[in-house]
Structure formats: structure tokens, C-alpha cells
């Protein structure tokens, strides 16, 4: 199939390159950005990563970008049987070797013949440091040129800088940036860990030996909130500065058991779950003004937990045991208008947990019992249609990437609980963590470059 596409594109490239523009379908993605590429559903553009000159920074950058573009699931990555065969792409202009300058010769026809719609070249220029060039093979043009000055593979933040370049390449092709410059928090053996989008740089963050749970990201990508357990069954929420490692307790959460926190999209308010002598209910606290603890639900004999904000901040989906059965509920972010959200059918709908609203607002991911095993589900917020995403092993605790198309979740499919990532458009799945066990993943927003 892949080969046929390649040949087809090849034929277009050779025979009818000008005519191809007329066949181009305009695809609306990411809030009305118009992209003029041939992009049929289910057929991903071919992406070729060119070989070339070597060097520590170049090689790492090339490897990271290639992996990121692959993990973006936007492209059909073209693997060459001879890795460096395309180093021929650059040659000195004939008869003009005296200047010593190399003029890139971009062999569009060859790339097209290999099935590429796009090609990426990572090279070094004397003045600019590392330059990453995206070629539009179909259009015979340079689509984008990205410069990374002073790229030092040993420097802190090197990988994130390269990930951001990969995200820009995705943006240049699709109109929406990739999510390579993101990280995922999760729990391993009671400790909070952070891992990059590509599974690299696994780092323990919270104090070893203290049971931590429920990590969640602040919208600024620089802070996280999590629960730290005491042995008497109480747990407070802590605000963690991810740059300095400094953490501070959130005052109204001392002396009771508080967990499953989530920030409002504007970052001012924290919604969380509290279990105490009155049961389990959802509270909000204004972190920005350090005031106004508010109780949103009064469960009585039912429990209400795991709040998740809609991206406009106006609604909160959560879990309630009110029907005698754990289900997804919805309310206003002030606690008004509480009602069952996911339609419920006896004997069909299993117990449902851990909802998370997608960043585009269109879906809620959650896990639900099916034949006594949890699976990850999606519910379309518009028409309330529910569909099952996973079926292999036990799958729980979905968390959205900022692109609203990837979901990380916990799966037991290989025997131990690990974090996996699924792409909802292609169905591709990959394993993110390989520790003893991992749970409660939380996907970050895009992590911006620190300006300070």
C-alpha cells in the first residue's frame, strides 16, 4: 500500500507536477488554517529525513527530529535501505569550486520517487549554527527554514529545543504544531516522575519514600500540583515549581485527604477532590488570590470526584456515584446544574472513571469497565456518542496531548502497568515508559522556551 502511494506520488511528481496543484484538496485543520497539500484522510504525506554531514549536535538533532516526526503520526516516514545514500543531495556547483561555498542541490525528483511529499535536511551553516530545512517535494520549494543557534548537545534543555523545531516542522506541514516539546508526569513506586514525549529523560521529581499521587500540570507548563500522602490516610496538595524543584503546601488542603486536582484553563483556580467525614466531594480554591475555598458538590451518600474543566473553563466534568454506579457527570464550574453526562444504560455502561476533557473541547476521555476490565473510552461532547479506544489488557487514566489527537494512558498489555500513547487518527500505539510500573499520567501543555 505504502509503495503504491509512493509510486503514485512519484508519477504525479514526474508527469504532472503543475497539474497537481489543481487537484490539491484544501483541508481545514486546527481552527480554520488552510493547508494546500494533497491530503486525503487515511493517507499521510511521506516524510524523508536526509542524511548528510555528521557531528554530535547534528546527529542527535537529526535523530530526535526524525523520531519526533514519526511520533507525530502525521507522516509516512520513509526509511531508506541505505541510510546515507542521499548525502549526494549537496554538491559543489560545477566549475565553481573556487568559492568554496556549497550550494545545495535538492533532488526533488529523487525524493518524490522515494515517495516523499516532504524532506527534512539538518545541516550546519557557519553563521547560523544548525539549520533545519523543510522541502516541499511536491511543490519543488523550500517550505520552511529553522535556525537553532548555539546548539550544544550537553547543555540543559538541548532536547526540548530540538523538539520545538520538530513541532515547527509539523506546523509548517499541517498548520498545527506538533507535541514533541511536551512532557508527561506519572507515578512510579509512589514517586512523581517526568518523561519527555519521546520517552527520553526520565526524572524523579518528588521526595522518595513519600507516597505521591495525582500529578497535574499548571497551564503555564512550569508548575505542577500533586498529592502527598501521610501514613494516617491524610494527604495534602502541593504546588511544585518544576524549574527550581521548590514546593509549597496548598493551605486549605492540610488535615484532610485531597487528591485528583486540576487547574482551570486560565490557571487561577484549582479544582480537586476531598475525602473527609462528610464523604467525597469536589472543591475549588483560588490559587492566584490564595482564597475562596468553595465546595461544589454535596454528595451525602454519594461520592463526587476527579474534576476536569472544559477548555473554556465554564464547565466541569467529574465522576459521581450518585446513580449507585460510578458515572461521568457534568456541572457548571460554579457547581450549578449537576447532571449525568455520559448516557447510561443498565447492563451496558460499566463503572466509569478518570475523565479528562480534550484540549479542543470536543471529547472527554475516561476509562470504563467492560467485562470486568477497564478500557479507555471517548465520548463526543456534542452528540454524547461513546466509543471504545482500547481492548488489549487493562487500560486506564487517559490524558490528552495538547494536540487533542494523542492520548497517554496506563496499560497492562505487556504484563506490567506502563504508560502508552495512542494516536486517535491512525490508531498507532507506542509504549512510553519502561519502569517497574507507572500510573496516573498527566500530559503537559506545550512547554515554551524560558525567556528568563
Amino acid at each position, binding site marked *: 500500500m505504502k509503495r503504491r502511494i509512493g509510486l503514485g506520488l512519484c508519477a504525479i511528481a514526474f508527469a504532472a507536477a503543475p497539474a497537481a496543484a489543481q487537484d490539491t484538496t484544501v483541508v481545514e485543520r486546527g481552527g480554520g488554517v488552510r493547508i494546500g497539500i494533497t491530503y486525503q484522510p487515511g493517507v499521510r504525506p511521506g516524510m524523508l529525513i536526509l542524511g548528510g554531514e555528521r557531528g554530535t549536535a547534528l546527529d542527535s538533532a537529526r535523530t530526535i527530529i526524525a523520531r519526533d516526526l514519526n511520533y507525530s503520526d502525521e507522516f509516512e516516514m520513509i526509511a531508506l535501505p541505505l541510510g546515507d545514500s542521499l548525502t549526494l543531495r549537496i554538491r559543489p556547483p560545477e566549475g565553481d569550486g573556487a568559492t568554496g561555498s556549497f550550494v545545495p542541490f535538492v533532488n526533488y525528483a529523487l525524493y518524490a520517487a522515494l515517495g516523499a511529499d516532504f524532506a527534512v535536511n539538518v545541516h550546519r551553516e557557519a553563521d547560523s549554527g544548525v539549520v533545519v530545512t523543510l522541502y516541499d517535494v511536491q511543490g519543488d520549494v523550500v517550505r520552511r527554514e529553522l535556525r537553532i543557534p548555539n546548539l550544544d548537545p550537553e547543555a540543559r534543555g538541548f532536547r526540548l529545543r530540538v523538539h520545538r523545531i520538530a513541532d515547527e516542522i509539523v506546523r509548517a506541514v499541517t498548520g498545527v504544531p506538533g507535541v514533541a516539546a511536551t512532557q508527561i508526569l506519572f507515578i512510579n513506586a509512589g514517586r512523581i516522575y517526568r518523561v519527555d514525549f519521546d520517552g527520553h529523560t526520565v526524572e524523579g521529581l518528588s521526595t522518595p519514600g513519600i507516597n505521591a499521587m495525582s500529578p497535574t500540570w499548571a497551564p503555564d507548563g512550569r508548575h505542577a500540583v500533586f498529592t502527598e500522602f501521610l501514613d494516617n*490516610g491524610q494527604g495534602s496538595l502541593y504546588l511544585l515549581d518544576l524549574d527550581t524543584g521548590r514546593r509549597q503546601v496548598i493551605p486549605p488542603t492540610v488535615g484532610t485527604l485531597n487528591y485528583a486536582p486540576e487547574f482551570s484553563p486560565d490557571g487561577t483556580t484549582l479544582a480537586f477532590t476531598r475525602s473527609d467525614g462528610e464523604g*467525597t466531594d469536589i472543591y475549588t480554591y483560588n490559587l492566584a488570590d490564595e482564597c475562596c475555598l468553595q465546595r461544589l458538590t454535596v454528595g451525602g451518600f454519594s461520592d463526587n470526584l476527579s474534576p476536569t474543566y472544559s477548555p473554556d473553563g465554564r464547565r466541569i466534568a467529574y465522576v459521581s456515584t450518585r446513580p449507585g454506579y460510578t458515572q461521568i457527570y457534568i456541572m457548571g464550574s460554579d457547581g450549578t446544574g449537576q447532571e449525568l453526562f455520559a448516557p447510561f444504560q443498565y447492563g451496558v455502561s460499566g463503572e466509569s472513571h*478518570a475523565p479528562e476533557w480534550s484540549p479542543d473541547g470536543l471529547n472527554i476521555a475516561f476509562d470504563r469497565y467492560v467485562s470486568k476490565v477497564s478500557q479507555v473510552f471517548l465520548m463526543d461532547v456534542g452528540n454524547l456518542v461513546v466509543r471504545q479506544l482500547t481492548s488489549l489488557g487493562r487500560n*486506564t487514566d487517559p490524558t490528552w496531548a495538547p494536540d487533542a489527537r494523542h492520548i497517554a494512558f496506563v496499560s497492562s498489555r505487556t504484563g506490567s502497568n506502563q504508560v502508552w500513547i495512542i494516536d486517535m487518527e491512525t490508531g498507532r500505539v507506542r509504549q512510553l515508559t519502561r519502569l517497574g510500573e507507572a500510573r496516573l499520567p498527566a500530559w503537559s501543555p506545550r512547554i515554551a522556551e524560558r525567556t528568563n
Partner: protein
Amino acid sequence: MRHTLPISAGLFVIVIAAACGGGPPPPPPGPDPDSLAAAQAEEQQVRDSIAAEQAVRDSVQRDSQRIVAEERRVREDSLASVREETNNVRDLLARRVHFDFDRSNIGTDDAAILDEKLAVLQRNPDLRIRVTGHCDERGSDEYNLALGNRRALAAKRYLTDRGIAESRIATSSMGEERPIAMGANEGAWGQNRRDEFTIISGGGTLKMPGM
């Protein structure tokens, strides 16, 4: 055996005293052997009386020591019995209550266990306890915190419904974070779905109900 010891020790003292009397230093050369003998006899008499007195004093001392030891023993016996009673009550308190999967209602067997705790709380008005709910590893990690809390509250409600003051029972939940049995089978899960009961205060000395 306990009684023979002081007596035989007393005799021993007398024997030693007599033995000393039997071996005096050689008398100085004197003009009158009779007066010498009389003096020796008198000396002997004095010694004997001192020894006897000593023996009596020793015996009295021993008797009083014995009485003190006896009193201490009795006191310790009663302390030990108080301690034992306290430990027995603690064992009663520590008995766990178990639950069905994803449930927090108290079953009949577990109600009997809670009735024991009810009696303990009634008999020991200063006692304050904490009930901590636990879950098996199945189900959502965060949901299990809520479920554990509900299980703790179910036990608390059972006790407060029967007259125990709310303030005497604290509750908390550890969700699935502290399993006591490992393994992905019903045997382990059943043990892990539980309430644990610990003493917060007033548990120094505990009285057994009905005693």
C-alpha cells in the same frame, strides 16, 4: 522453699557465732585460772547474746524484705493483668472488617466485629480511634481513595448510630496504596478490601467489656 531460706540462714549465723566463740585467742598468762574461765564464760555469753540478737534482727529484716517482695509481686501481677486486659482489648479493636468488591456496606460477620468495638468504646469512654478504609488493586486509583473513605465512614456510622460520639472516631482512606496481601487473585483482594482500626488516644489502659 521460700520460708526455709531465712531460717536456715539465721541458723548459719548462729553457727558461725559459736564457731568464733570456740576459737578465742590464747589467754594472757594470769594468776587466777577460775577468774579467767569466768571471764571467758561471760565473754562467751555476751557474744552469744549478740549473735542471737543479730539473728533476730536478720530474721526480721528478711521477713520485711519478703513482705515487700510479696507486695511488689502482687502489684506486678495486677499490673500484668491490667496490661494483659489492655492488650486483649487492643486485639479486639485491631480486628479488621472486610468488604465485597466495590462495596462499602457492612456484612453480618463484620457487624459482629463492629459490635465488639462498640462495647469497647462504651466501656472505655476516653478512647478515640481512627478507622482507615482500604481497597484492592482493581479500579481507578483515585476512585479507590473515595471508596476507602466510604468504607471507613460505613464503620464509623455503624458505631455512631449506636451511640458513640462522632468526635471519638476519625476516618481516613488509603485507597489501594497499602495492600497487606500481594497477588492478583480474590484471596489477596479479599484481604485488602478492609477497614483498619487504630487508637488515637485514651488507649493507655483499656478495660475489657463485661469485666
